[in-house]
């Protein structure tokens, strides 16, 4: 009743192949886009932007990237933090070496650099799989972070070993550095998210996405029916790292402003993004959004409740948060292995029949 797909007839293949073939979904999507682009900039303030909205947008890009690798191509990676660091340090070197280059191109080029590094560390995936590959990506995690903290060239020989983003403008409005306003930070992250989500959605339903899924479901069988595993796995690593690199570059330039590789991009970041993908739902674009939202908003709410509401000490709340995240992972894996995305599918199923379920 509330969610209907009946009576929505298509008269051309183009109409039938569109991203959201159901009217209800399509209008909901237009409404969300309109809300995000037109209403949010008017109501957003510094607190909302810094604690929830901007990190949500940035981590969603990372979760989309990791979801392509794990959820669509089945290659487990624990090196997301390091790939984000590649994006961050790549954008830093570009910003300082070419001050005239527009920040948007800087971030995109940083994404391409990360894609290159990702392909390099993805090469072992041609011979090894599963946990073994996870260990190989751990090598990327620890080696790259070590490289960024030990090689002075990467942080321009700054005495603190930190990198900090200079002010850059888009259309005369500063988006990075201390003068950037909440609205400009929000808008640049939103634009990147919309474009990357559109890319991810269309890549995964095209022939490349089908190749990835064939490799995920059974790689030997996929090879027999003519999928080239070399191309499929390496493109998955490249696209995934490209997204993760963009997310890392945005995290550093727009959100953090200053960063140190070991602290900002440690192994806990890899796990955070992995959890977003698992809780949201493996192999689902909507899942990346849901997982990122859940893991960004959840801790903020918990902290509000425990520290501000009940007056508990901060460290206790932090430990409780770790515990709850761990328990949630277990609950989701047991009760709903396909994550929030599957819950959403069930809800739609129920809404379709409501109020007359059979």
């Amino acid at each position, binding site marked *: 009743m509330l969610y209907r797909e009946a009576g929505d007839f298509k008269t051309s293949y183009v109409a039938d192949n569109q991203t959201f073939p159901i009217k209800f979904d399509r209008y909901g999507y237009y409404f969300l886009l309109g809300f995000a682009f037109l209403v949010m900039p008017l109501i957003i303030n510094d607190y909302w932007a810094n604690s929830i909205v901007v990190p949500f947008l940035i981590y969603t890009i990372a979760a989309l990237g990791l979801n392509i690798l794990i959820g669509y191509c089945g290659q487990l990676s624990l090196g997301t933090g390091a790939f984000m660091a590649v994006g961050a340090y790549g954008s830093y070197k570009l910003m300082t070496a070419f001050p005239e280059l527009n920040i948007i191109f800087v971030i995109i080029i940083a994404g391409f650099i990360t894609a290159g590094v990702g392909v390099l560390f993805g090469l072992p995936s041609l011979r090894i799989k599963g946990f073994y590959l996870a260990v190989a990506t751990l*090598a990327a995690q620890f080696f790259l972070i070590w490289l960024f903290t030990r090689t002075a060239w990467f942080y321009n020989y700054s005495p603190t070993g930190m990198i900090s983003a200079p002010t850059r403008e888009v259309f005369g409005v500063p988006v990075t550095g201390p003068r950037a306003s909440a609205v400009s930070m929000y808008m640049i992250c939103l634009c990147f998210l919309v474009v990357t989500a559109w890319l991810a959605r269309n890549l995964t339903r095209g022939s490349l996405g089908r190749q990835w899924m064939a490799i995920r479901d059974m790689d030997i069988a996929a090879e027999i029916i003519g999928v080239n595993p070399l191309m499929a796995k390496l493109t998955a690593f490249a696209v995934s790292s490209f997204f993760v690199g963009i997310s890392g570059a945005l995290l550093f330039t727009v959100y953090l402003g200053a960063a140190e590789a070991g602290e900002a991009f440690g192994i806990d970041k890899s796990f955070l993004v992995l959890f977003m993908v698992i809780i949201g739902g493996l192999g689902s674009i909507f899942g990346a959004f849901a997982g990122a939202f859940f893991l960004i908003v959840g801790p903020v709410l918990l902290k509000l409740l425990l520290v501000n509401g009940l007056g508990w000490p901060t460290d206790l709340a932090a430990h409780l948060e770790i515990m709850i995240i761990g328990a949630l992972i277990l609950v989701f894996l047991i009760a709903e292995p396909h994550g929030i995305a599957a819950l959403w599918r069930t809800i739609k199923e129920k809404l379709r029949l409501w109020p007359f379920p059979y």
Partner: protein
Amino acid sequence: MPDTLLFAMEATLNGLTAGVMYALVALGFVLIFKASGIFNFAQGVMALFAALTLVGFQSGQIPFSHLINAMFGTRLHHFGWNMPTLLAIPATVLVMILLAVLVERFILKHLVNQEPIILFMATIGLAYFLEGVGDIMWGAEVKALDVGLPKGMSGAVDDVTFAWFGYGFYIDRLEIWAAGIAALLVAALTVFSQYTKQGRALRAVADDHQAALSVGISLRFIWVLTWSIAGIVALVAGIMWGSKSGVQFSLSLIALKALPVLILGGFTSIPGAIIGGLIIGVGEKLFDFFMSPIIGGATENWFAYMLALVFLLFRPQGLFGERIIERV
């Protein structure tokens, strides 16, 4: 004898003793992987949890005191007595067995027949959960652990090597003890799995789940048994690492170091875990010794993983692992 060679020999010896410590953690992984095909990421956190519990029992801390204080405004922290080590260790063993029962009851039972990757992620979740529970139960500050093992430089090794080479090697007595205890542990595990009824059942399950079920072996009991043994191995590893560098969060990161050890040794081989640990220990000490003047220090952070990565490209099943056969 040139000094460099002597220093390299000392580094090798230190690497061997460090490798024994890695092997201790890797042992727990191998046990669980053999019996249930689960790659238990939580092994390191289990070591941390066991060590925390042991210290808590020894010093008579009240579990969850911080949480209770925050909820009810009380000021609890200690029972006011100290438990002797000989009593605290069995008590901790009991806690680890209880943990094994709970893990089987609430997690493994529900995840039968899931893909290995899902089980792996479940153990990551378990690792986070246990870490949070450990911190809330016993507090997160760094604690000193003392179970009466000797510490400090070994005089005997110093004297002997001084008499031989004119230069005394520095070896921690604790690490010599660790090597001895690890050898004992491996011997005990071997005897258990070869000569007892439950040990044979365990090997049967490792070999083939369904065949083991059909001859009447209870899979659930075997799982509890394996996780209990893994918990006890974790306790031993926790005691060793805790005595060496204090009980703190970084203990759980040792689990990550055990991964390359496993890759070298193979996931299913107990001798492999020991030899892999020794190779990694010696390799990273020697690499650091020769390369740090050239490329900068702290290479221990990544050397083991890189070694494993290169190794994997040539021999994916590890040194002693079973051959990987794939079918469609």
